[in-house]
């Protein structure tokens, strides 16, 4: 093999004499040297998809930001706790004159210990019982607390064992999500509040406070709406009443409606595609890649989902995907045919029949300048898993899935492995499995409907084109923007 080694090393980069200027003259006359335009449709589609994702992320993070950093800095609270020692209802009056520290200190009378922490008490009272926010439970307790705000209407709240109700149907809960809340709690000196009759408030401790906070978070049907900021609270009191923030009861809790676990979704998407052909015959693969390019695709999916729990669901259905490809080739090829022929045959122009006829096998040189659009169609059965999550009122879902191809059809032209144009119809084709990952944003429309917008990335490897072509495989990548509707049954 010395000879082969020598040849490869010495001749693979060998140059031959050619009139390059003449070649340039010939080539330049065949090429229209306008600056290549971007593919407008795909460019804009990609831009819109990207912008949509950015907007969704912005919405999501804006909400998170607002939720974790309440800015009610101007609220100067004047809190009154009215206390009645002789009755089960105890009121304590709290005056606030200074705003600035994280701790809102005031003096309370003897119904509450001077070291007592009303917040602690209220927290424990409010969340010790999971039925505390049901309208039916109206058991009275011995302590009423009234809060007043100079900015807003002075609300009056009643604390009972199970309920902390405001006039306007809002409730007070601990400020569990504020960043310094736990620190404040840890600094509290008092871990228990015992009323005279030891009925109204239940003794608690730091660890219990944490527990109650956790319980509060676990009450997933409650939406917390912070109305005050810890940093603006006065340090003149031990009772951190502003830590109690109003919340509302979600619709689900109010209605207590039984929800069906079945959902039907229809998605429709349009997007860009990428195709890569691979083969052991790299030259043939390069030829195919140089003559074929994937353009836009369209798909529609019907998906029936079964909700496993609050976050997870599984689904299946039917999926149709249509892909357009451009086939562009300029060149000539030889074709051998049996039949009647004459001396010279010009396939792409006309047949000159003036010369004598003969029968048998003839070979013709055919010149073609082809620009055609191929169409590939896939019908798949998707099996997907969905993870649903909410950021405030914004719903999202992530949906990984596998699609099993049950039908595949290709129509158009391609270059076969002898470099001649052939019809895709003639080729046996197959597409096995596709993988998809999508991210969707969803909003409810009424009780049973949702609309969705999202983006999906799909990968279809090992799509084989073969029998009368060289062994070659296509790998497709689809990226689309999709919208859809979901109906609950």
């Amino acid at each position, binding site marked *: 093999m010395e000879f082969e080694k020598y040849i490869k090393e010495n001749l693979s980069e060998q140059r031959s004499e050619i009139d390059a200027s003449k070649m340039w003259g010939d080539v330049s006359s065949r090429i229209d040297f306008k600056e290549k335009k971007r593919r407008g449709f795909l460019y804009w589609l990609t831009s819109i998809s990207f912008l949509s994702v950015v907007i969704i992320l912005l919405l999501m993070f804006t909400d998170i930001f607002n939720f974790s950093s309440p800015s009610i800095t101007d609220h100067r609270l004047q809190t009154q706790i009215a206390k009645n020692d002789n009755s089960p209802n105890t009121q304590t009056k709290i005056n606030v004159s200074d705003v600035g520290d994280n701790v809102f200190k005031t003096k309370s009378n003897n119904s509450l210990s001077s070291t007592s922490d009303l917040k602690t008490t209220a927290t424990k009272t409010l969340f010790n019982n999971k039925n505390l926010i049901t309208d039916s439970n109206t058991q009275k307790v011995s302590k009423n607390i009234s809060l007043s705000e100079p900015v807003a209407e002075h609300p009056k709240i009643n604390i009972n064992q199970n309920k902390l109700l405001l006039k306007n149907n809002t409730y007070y809960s601990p400020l569990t999500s504020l960043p310094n809340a736990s620190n404040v709690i840890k600094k509290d000196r008092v871990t228990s509040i015992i009323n005279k009759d030891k009925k109204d408030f239940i003794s608690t401790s730091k660890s219990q406070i944490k527990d109650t906070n956790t319980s509060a978070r676990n009450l997933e049907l409650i939406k917390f709406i912070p109305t005050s900021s810890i940093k603006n609270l006065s340090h003149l009191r031990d009772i951190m009443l502003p830590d109690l923030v109003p919340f509302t009861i979600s619709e689900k809790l109010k209605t207590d409606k039984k929800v069906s676990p079945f959902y039907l979704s229809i998605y429709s998407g349009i997007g860009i595609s990428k195709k890569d052909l691979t083969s052991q015959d790299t030259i043939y693969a390069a030829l195919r890649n140089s003559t074929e390019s994937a353009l836009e695709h369209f798909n529609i999916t019907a998906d029936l989902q079964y909700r496993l729990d609050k976050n997870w669901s599984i689904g299946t259905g039917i999926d149709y995907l249509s892909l357009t490809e451009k086939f562009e080739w300029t060149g000539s090829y030889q074709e051998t045919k049996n039949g009647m022929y004459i001396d010279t045959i010009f396939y792409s122009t006309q047949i000159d029949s003036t010369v004598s006829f003969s029968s048998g096998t003839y070979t013709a040189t055919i010149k073609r300048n082809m620009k055609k659009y191929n169409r590939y169609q896939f019908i798949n059965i998707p099996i997907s898993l969905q993870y649903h999550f909410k950021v405030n009122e914004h719903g999202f879902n992530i949906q990984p899935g596998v699609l099993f191809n049950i039908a595949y059809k290709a129509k158009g032209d391609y270059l076969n*492995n002898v470099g001649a144009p052939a019809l895709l119809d003639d080729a046996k084709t197959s597409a096995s499995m596709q993988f998809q990952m999508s991210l969707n944003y969803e909003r409810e429309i009424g009780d049973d409907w949702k609309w969705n917008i999202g983006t999906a990335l799909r990968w279809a490897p090992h799509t084989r084109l073969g029998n009368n072509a060289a062994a070659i495989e296509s790998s497709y990548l689809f990226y689309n923007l999709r919208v859809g509707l979901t109906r609950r049954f």
Partner: protein
Amino acid sequence: MNKQEEIQFIKRLRNGERDAFKHLVLSFSSLFFTKAKLYSRNKQDAEDSLQDAYVTIYQKIDQFHGNELGKLLAWCQKIVINTSLSKYRKKYYSHERDELTPQTDIEISPEVYGQFEQAELLSIIQLLPEGYRQIFSLFAIEGYSHKEIAEKLNIKSNTSRSQYIRAKSKLNVLMSEHSQITLSHGI
């Protein structure tokens, strides 16, 4: 051309700039023409194939994703070879595939091929019959295996192997003849 210039050059090619493409044609036609000649019937066909290849390169330059000149040239050479082969290979092999019988490979002595300049050697290879020349070039110069050549030319791999052996044998004879001619002229 340094690395930055290569990147700029390829970028300008992708943008369809006339000057960049002119630079490609003027600078590298001699390289591409060698490939075109090896896989074409004659010089005129090679020039036609090279023209077609340039048009294809211009149309498909977007599909080249590299940033190195070496890779660009290799990609262009593949297009040149394909364009040249696509014209003739089916017709040629349809006649030849059945008449071949396996032979034993021969080893050409370095004394035989070592006496020729590279250009001379290339000229001698050009004297091989078209079918021999294509298979010889694909195997010895481009480095394809017989299996790959078989898939590429739609022939059996044994056919490729035996064609190559015949081509090599024929080349040995041609080199010997050429050597004698040179010697006789030298005397």
